[in-house]
């Protein structure tokens, strides 16, 4: 069970949000055409979430082990900078690398993950988050579980939670509207 007071305290410290893609920005469903081209469904509500976080001075990156041009096509419209669209299965090594580069520490990060491959990073960062339909293992290490399932507005909901915890939500909404 999520302890909201504790989650709010942890959310106050967040300076950077790392998003897994599959199961977080999507509901895990894969669509194939008859000639084998794969598509996935994303949420435009999460675009608002990503933009709101960045408007509030919080960095946003993608971290996925499966790389395709979809990451860029989504990153473009979520306004996630190209250099923060990370494609690697070595997620912990990537966190180490970015901490070195940015000077941020574990406590500054929020990581949103739903599966086994995410557990290592989730155990490291200050504010680990899972979607409501994430794997039980991910939910059990999460400090916060969104009501939304993957692909259904996880980032929008998380952005509002973090920015409200930091007292920035109203100002960000004014800017977006």
């Amino acid at each position, binding site marked *: 069970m999520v302890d909201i007071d504790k989650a709010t305290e942890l959310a106050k410290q967040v300076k950077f949000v790392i998003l897994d893609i599959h199961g977080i920005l999507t509901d895990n469903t894969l669509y194939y055409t008859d000639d084998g*081209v794969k598509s996935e*469904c994303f949420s435009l509500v999460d675009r608002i979430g990503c933009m709101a976080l960045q408007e509030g001075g919080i960095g946003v990156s993608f971290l996925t082990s499966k790389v395709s041009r979809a990451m860029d096509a*989504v990153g473009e419209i979520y306004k996630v900078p190209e250099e923060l669209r990370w494609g690697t299965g070595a997620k912990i090594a990537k966190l180490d690398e970015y901490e070195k580069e940015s000077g941020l520490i574990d406590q500054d990060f929020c990581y949103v993950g739903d599966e086994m491959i995410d557990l290592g990073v989730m155990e490291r960062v200050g504010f680990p988050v899972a979607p409501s339909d994430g794997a039980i293992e991910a939910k059990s290490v999460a400090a916060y579980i969104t009501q939304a399932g993957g692909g259904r507005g996880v980032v929008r909901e998380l952005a509002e939670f973090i920015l409200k915890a930091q007292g920035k939500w109203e100002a960000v909404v004014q800017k977006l509207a």
Partner: protein
Amino acid sequence: MSFDKDMALAKEKAARVKLFVHDVHGVLTPNTFFCDVEGRRRYSFWHMDGFGDLSLFANGIKVAFLDSTSVDGEGQFRAKELKLDKLYFNVQDKPAKLKELQEQLGISKEETACIGCEVTDLAIMKSSGFAVATADAIADAKAIADFITSAPGGRGPIRETCEFILRAMGKWEAWVEKVTKMGYK
């Protein structure tokens, strides 16, 4: 959260409408997009929402797209397809555009209807005499709405709103009869 709305008041307000405005994503669409591995994005719309907008248009009510959410021009494609692109506007400042439109067309706040779902819709909803929220709108939008559709975005909220407006005006039955006999375009 549940919101009780005064249906008699909603009807009264709907009956005055001369201009209906809406954004694109979250209303005409379920706020989603499909992206393939080659980076092509696709958007889904609800067929009968087009019928809704056209029903109002055919009954003398102006329909305007205040599109602040399209990514690849999909809102404009849809407006063009419906031949409603004369009042299609790609804008970031929706409240300013609505004010300008109301002045240009000589239509008052009380004669304006708006359907919305997000924080970015609150201002134009407040500038409309008849404000509508989708079933999956944020709580703040539902709170200020006069009417909440049973359909979520991308599943027919425009069709539902337009029927509500035409029924409030007492024009629905005649319109249905006309469409039944002659179709619509």
